[in-house]
């Protein structure tokens, strides 16, 4: 093993002089705790390039992890306690005074990482790091009331820690200090240590508490050399060399498992630690739980589809309900995108009138929660659009229960329609009686030909709850058919019979040919979003 100690040079560090003057309580506690450290074990860890905070972590000295001082000062404390100065004369010059990447935490506990632009960043302590995060949050989000911190780390960290721990346990098993304190058990993980160290500082910088929250701050650390995701035992048993400086290759194998002991005998010179030359990439992302805005919509046009409908780069219809509503609400919430959900749907050439159809807009990553007044304003705005294609009613913000509200009982609900029907002979009074006398009429509908290409061929029994004919002044063969049916009934096919595949049909009931010219939905009977 090499005799070289690679520690940042302590001699010319200005921080050292400053800390010498201000010894806080925490520092005192730390200095006391450090006295108990076994010099030989610490020396060993330093040799293997374990960073100072990880050393504190492995020995459960939590003050060392949280205290807001630079690693340089922490090193000096350790050196004083374990009398390592004598051996620190030889130190290799580090470029730009940056520390070596810790072989366990890969720079995470050193607040050292590569950002999105591949720039190397290193912060002195948790508060500086938290400040950077907080600033980033404040740039984009102005209204958070709490936050949840999520951290994702490469598995290589756990693996390297296992390697070092098993090595240390084997080597120092016989030492007094080892046996007395049952050392190296219940060690706080890098992930937990990181979260604990920055949570307080984040709360201070952001002015809100950390809790189970809709707003998430996510730190994702990744490293190219972390091949463990694809690393199954079988795959890696080839004689490939890992690029970033492996030492202790045994028979050309690389064994990366989460088990503590890999091979039978782990001797001093046989140490399968995977070291890296650069710190991890760290990506800082935020997300906000979606905001739900619901209401009822009316579709006044026969050329507007419910959802965006584009085939071969061509739009069907002149607009869609989804876009007309979504594009207006999205900017009000300053979100990233929206999803449209409605309780049922109607064809592009069918108008949705009367009470309107319940719908829900889910705004993703909404940065601004609109007030009830601005929602009312939005409702007026949409209703005032010149194109007059769509109207909204009862627009309001819903909680996350909005989703289940939509699905609840959708299938059992009744729908009411008005159809413009033509028959092949003149209407007579008997016809009115024939249709209005039928209550809860059972109709057997084979899958309509117009949807047969994408739906299962099935016979579906549906119920027509009631019907009546409204004569149209000036016409003897046209009338308005009002009807109330079970959800899922194909109305057009009930009128024209779909070549006899829907039976009975208006044609068969009246004994003539019947055609439907127009269809309008006049009521969607659901108990939600009614005010």
């Amino acid at each position: 093993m090499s005799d070289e100690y690679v520690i940042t040079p302590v001699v010319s560090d200005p921080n050292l002089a400053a800390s010498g003057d201000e010894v806080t309580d925490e520092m005192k506690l730390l200095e006391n705790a450090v006295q108990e450290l076994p010099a030989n074990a610490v020396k060993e860890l330093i040799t293997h390039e374990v960073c100072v905070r990880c050393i504190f972590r492995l020995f459960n000295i939590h003050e060392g992890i949280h205290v807001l001082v630079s690693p340089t000062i922490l090193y000096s404390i350790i050196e004083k306690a374990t009398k390592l100065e004598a051996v620190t004369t030889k130190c290799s010059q580090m470029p730009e005074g940056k520390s070596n990447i810790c072989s366990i935490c890969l720079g995470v506990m050193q607040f050292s990482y590569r950002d999105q632009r591949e720039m190397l960043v290193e912060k002195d302590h948790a508060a500086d790091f938290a400040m950077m995060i907080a600033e980033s949050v404040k740039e984009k989000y102005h209204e958070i009331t709490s936050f949840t911190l999520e951290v994702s780390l490469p598995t290589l960290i756990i693996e390297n820690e296992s390697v070092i721990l098993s090595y240390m346990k084997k080597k120092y098993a016989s030492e007094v200090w080892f046996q007395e304190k049952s050392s190296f058990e219940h060690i706080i993980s890098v992930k937990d240590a990181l979260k604990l160290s920055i949570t307080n500082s984040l709360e201070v910088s952001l002015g809100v508490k950390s809790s189970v929250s809709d707003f998430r701050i996510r730190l994702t650390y990744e490293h190219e050399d972390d091949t463990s995701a694809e690393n199954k035992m079988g795959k890696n048993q080839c004689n490939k060399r890992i690029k970033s400086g492996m030492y202790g290759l045994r028979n050309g194998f690389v064994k990366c498992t989460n088990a503590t002991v890999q091979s039978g005998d782990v001797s001093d010179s046989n140490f399968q630690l995977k070291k890296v030359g650069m710190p991890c990439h760290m990506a800082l992302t935020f997300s906000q739980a979606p905001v739900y805005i619901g209401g009822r919509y009316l579709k006044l046009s026969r050329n507007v589809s419910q959802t965006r409908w584009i085939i071969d780069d061509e739009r069907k219809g002149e607009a869609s309900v989804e876009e007309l509503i979504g594009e207006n609400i999205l900017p009000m919430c300053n979100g990233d995108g929206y999803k449209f959900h409605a309780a049922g749907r109607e064809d592009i050439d069918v108008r949705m009138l009367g009470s309107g159809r319940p719908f829900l807009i889910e705004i993703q990553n909404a940065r601004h929660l609109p007030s009830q007044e601005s929602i009312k304003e939005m409702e007026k705005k949409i209703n005032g659009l010149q194109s007059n294609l769509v109207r909204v009613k009862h627009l309001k913000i819903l909680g996350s229960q909005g989703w289940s509200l939509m699905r609840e009982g959708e299938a059992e609900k009744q729908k009411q329609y008005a159809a413009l029907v033509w028959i092949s002979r003149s209407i007579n009074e008997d016809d009115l009686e024939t249709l209005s006398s039928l209550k809860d009429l059972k109709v057997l509908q084979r899958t309509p030909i117009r949807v047969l290409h994408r739906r299962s061929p099935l016979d579906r029994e549906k119920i027509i709850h009631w019907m009546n004919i409204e004569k149209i002044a000036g016409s003897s063969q046209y009338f308005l058919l009002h009807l109330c049916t079970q959800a899922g009934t194909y109305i057009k096919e009930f009128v024209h019979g779909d070549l006899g595949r829907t039976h009975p049909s208006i044609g068969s009931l009246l004994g003539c040919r019947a055609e439907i010219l127009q269809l309008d939905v006049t009521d969607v009977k659901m108990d939600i979003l009614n005010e």
Partner: protein
Amino acid sequence: MTTQNADSAADPAADQQPPQAPAVSYDEGYDAEKELHKLLLPNVNDLPISPSSAVESNFVTYLAPDFLKPEHDQYIYRHANGLCVIGLAAGHVAFKDEGAITAVDFNVGKSNRSEIKVTGKRKRNAQHFESNTALCKVCTNNASYIVRCCIKGSLLEVNERLLKQPELLNSAADREGYIAIIMPKPADWQKIKDSFISFDEYKKLRHF
């Protein structure tokens, strides 16, 4: 909405409490209904005397005259979604027989076409037929005639109502008397569609 208001007005208990403003006032509710009704009523002057039928609006009609045999005329209604409805065209020789069509039998070729069960969106179990594959036999008092697929594709459904009601062919061969529904692959349709003629051309051909 209007009945709700009537009830609360008649309820004496309501007098003791401040009246709850109903969701829609009587006037508003009545207006909403009137508005709705105005939207529903068509302009009578815009209504055609005889509107186009569901078939005319939703399908393109093709005719295959003399398909494999003289006067064996069949129609193909093709929907925008690619499905094709096959049936006997008005000029089919079977209609010329005395008493017209009396029976239909789907048991032709290797299987009884009325017994296939096609399931699922992917239309499993559908049999793949060629354009000259027999669909069924229509019988008159004098003779029987084979009806063919006309197009290559999967047979989705036959009109099994014809078994009990063969007279549908006599009264409405172009609608309720259809024979079958076939789903051709787009490429197969492209190959064959030019061999068919339009309804107008057919009328001229048969002097209707």
